[in-house]
């Protein structure tokens, strides 16, 4: 017992090492939220292009580019995309004169672009699930295709895929654990730094796992509540 206590003290209390975890957690959340926002925007745009092409045959070139994007992003590992983004694409670019800030921006870009590919297919399935009679009704009232999408199709698609989108947030939260590859000290890297200083792996790594698990459980619970709320509002 006393061994555990001293282990705990050494890993988290001494030299205020717990700050590696709290600061790391902040970074993890920052990168995740930034990436989710970017991913949603990208995902919706790509989904609109793809479903417009599927339904009307227009936007051929854009649709082709979107397909390349989806294939490349979904066909390569996240870590590799992150490293290419950091070392190759933005290899010599420093944003706002700060190397630290640059890392965050690159991470948000890489994770966001990755997430966008998955969001796109979620949203596209939601759009295609909206009955084509809804589009005809919108068009027959005098709405343009665009207005029909914005006012009639997208709100219904969004509601249908909201739980899946919330799940994407959970997925991304865990995916960002590879941010350490470009020198970002996120939650995972924070725990790993403690391990390298104290030479004990058990406490820091289990603490890291525990924090992820608690966050995922809370978020999953919220998603379930959201699903129930939506199911209710469908019936009214």
């Amino acid at each position, binding site marked *: 017992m006393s061994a555990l206590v001293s282990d705990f003290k050494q890993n988290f209390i001494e030299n205020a090492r717990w700050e590696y975890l709290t600061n790391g957690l902040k970074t993890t959340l920052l990168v995740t939220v930034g990436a989710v926002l970017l991913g949603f925007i990208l995902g919706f745009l790509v989904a609109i292009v793809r479903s417009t092409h599927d339904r009307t045959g227009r936007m051929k070139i854009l649709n082709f580019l979107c397909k390349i994007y989806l294939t490349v992003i979904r066909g390569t590992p996240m870590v590799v995309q992150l490293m290419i983004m950091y070392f190759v694409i933005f290899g010599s670019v420093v944003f706002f004169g700060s190397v630290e800030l640059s890392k965050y921006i690159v991470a948000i870009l890489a994770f966001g672009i990755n997430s966008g590919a998955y969001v796109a297919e979620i949203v596209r399935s939601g759009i295609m699930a909206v009955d084509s*009679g809804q589009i005809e*009704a919108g068009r027959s009232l005098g*709405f343009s295709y665009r207005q029909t999408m914005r006012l*009639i199709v997208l709100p219904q698609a969004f*509601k249908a895929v909201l739980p899946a989108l919330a799940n994407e947030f959970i997925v991304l939260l865990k995916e960002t654990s590879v941010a350490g590859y470009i020198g970002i000290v996120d939650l995972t890297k924070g725990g790993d730094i403690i391990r390298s200083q104290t030479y004990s792996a058990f406490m820091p790594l289990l603490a890291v796992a525990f924090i992820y698990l608690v966050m995922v459980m809370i978020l999953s619970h919220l998603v379930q509540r959201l699903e129930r709320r939506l199911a209710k509002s469908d019936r009214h």
Partner: protein
Amino acid sequence: MIDIKDLVMTFSGVTVLDHISETINKGEKIVIVGPSGSGKSTFLRCLNMLERPTSGQILFEGKDLTKAKEEELDKIRMKMGMVFQNFNLFPHMTVRQNITIAPKRLGLLTKEEADAKAEELLEIVGLPDKIDSYPSTLSGGQKQRIAIARALAVDPDVMLFDEPTSALDPEMVGEVLQLMKKLADDGMTMVVVTHEMSFAKEVASRVLFVADGNILEQAPPKEFFENPKNPRLKDFLSKIL
């Protein structure tokens, strides 16, 4: 009001409408009957360009729709209300929103005017107390009456009905037909695809028999039903009457 000239519609090689020419005058109530799969819906959907004809012309109030730009078509569709077999109400909106969204978003009416219009239309269709309900809480007949109100909210010059009572339980057919009759009595130009022969007899100024992508016969209802000439029509009538 609507001039159809040599209308042809083919879907991947299959000819669904085969050189149809017809004129629909202001105030007329055209009822279209015919076997299923004969192209009635396609014909209706060509009138407001939901479906682009393969060839031929549709002239609406003198303007050739087959040559109109998309933006022009959006404006013209406003003048041609459409009512669907499956209602196609917007499920994420209340009845009020269903009715007001088009006049509001198309810049025809202010929010207050649109609300007043919705209340007025709901009186006409007999559902004033449903204004804040969602479509999912309504019966089929009520849904279709709301769908008619929604189409009327943009003041169309002509109303197209595609089997408006076919998806309804029998006891709800009457309320919808009654409303359509009221519209007809008020002078609305109407093109109605239906299997309700009583409606055709009572309301139609002309009945068209469509089969094999053509108008095989047309006449005022009395003659159409009492003295059919085309053998296909005779056969059709003997099956449904």
